[in-house]
């Protein structure tokens, strides 16, 4: 039986994302007609790849698109005056 793209699947993936191994609470899961899109940002490419690997491994029959970005870490060019 193939995995249904329903809200239980979405909740299970969210649970996986926030468990002790991955520990990413800022990843979004969006259901499309035939696929799931993982979004948000993480701190490294290695972390993004590991998240997508684990989700794909757990749900091999679901088409998962990994649209997770890496948060930029450059120095600021402006200062905000607080008043």
């Amino acid at each position: 039986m193939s995995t249904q793209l329903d809200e239980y699947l979405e909740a299970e993936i969210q649970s996986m994302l926030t468990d002790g191994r991955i520990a990413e609470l800022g990843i979004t899961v969006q259901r499309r007609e035939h696929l799931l899109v993982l979004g948000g940002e993480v701190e490294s490419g290695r972390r993004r790849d590991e998240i997508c690997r684990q989700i794909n491994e757990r749900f091999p029959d679901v088409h998962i698109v990994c649209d997770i970005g890496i948060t930029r870490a450059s120095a600021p060019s402006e200062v905000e005056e607080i008043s």
Partner: protein
Amino acid sequence: MIRIAAVGDVHVDKDVLGRFRPALEELPERADALLIAGDLTRHGTVEEARCFVTEFGGLGVPVVAVLGNHDHQSDQQARVSDVLTESGITVLEGDTTVLELHGHRLGIAGVKGFGGGFAGASASNFGEREMKDFVGTTEVIAERLENALKSIEVDALVALTHYAPVPDTLLGEPLEIYAFLGCYQLGRAIDAAPTALALHGHAHHGSERGRTPGGVPVRNVAHPVIKQAYNVYQLLTEHVDAELVAS
């Protein structure tokens, strides 16, 4: 004039080493101190705390931090704090530090904070023991922040938390999880003292700017929100200067 740099939610582990360091090396040219608004680590392990110290330590400016919920994940928060403190980073939890900068006294009061929600959609200290424990924790932490803020007399007072003190800076997050991202009690504590600026993290999909009901500026400095290594805020301005020294 005092310039403080701030960021939160950097979630350092081995895979992050080296990502922030180039921008941090420039920090002393841009700011007088660095404030970290929690979630320094990914799972709150001692090993990750050491990675954080490697990346954020030894900057040549004071570094002041509060822990976040991730830093509590492995129940090693005391040891995590020890690793940070041993490296010269000040960790606040219900207490304060005062920095002497350019002849001014900058006071920072910090707590991790906790959830509970905001006016019209907040949890109550009522019912099951678990619920009373949850809201009771929130109330105790907020009281500690208020007492800390009121305990020092300085030229500029900053409140540093991980959880949000206002809903303004949560815009972009699902409404359903606001109660897990912050609480009004922190805002009330901040308004009870002459606070100049409140900094927090935790809300990765939130917004950068807000104000408490009492008018104190609030900034969400979660790294995914500010999208750079740190933000710089200028307090006690003698003249307007919108450009940083370094380019």
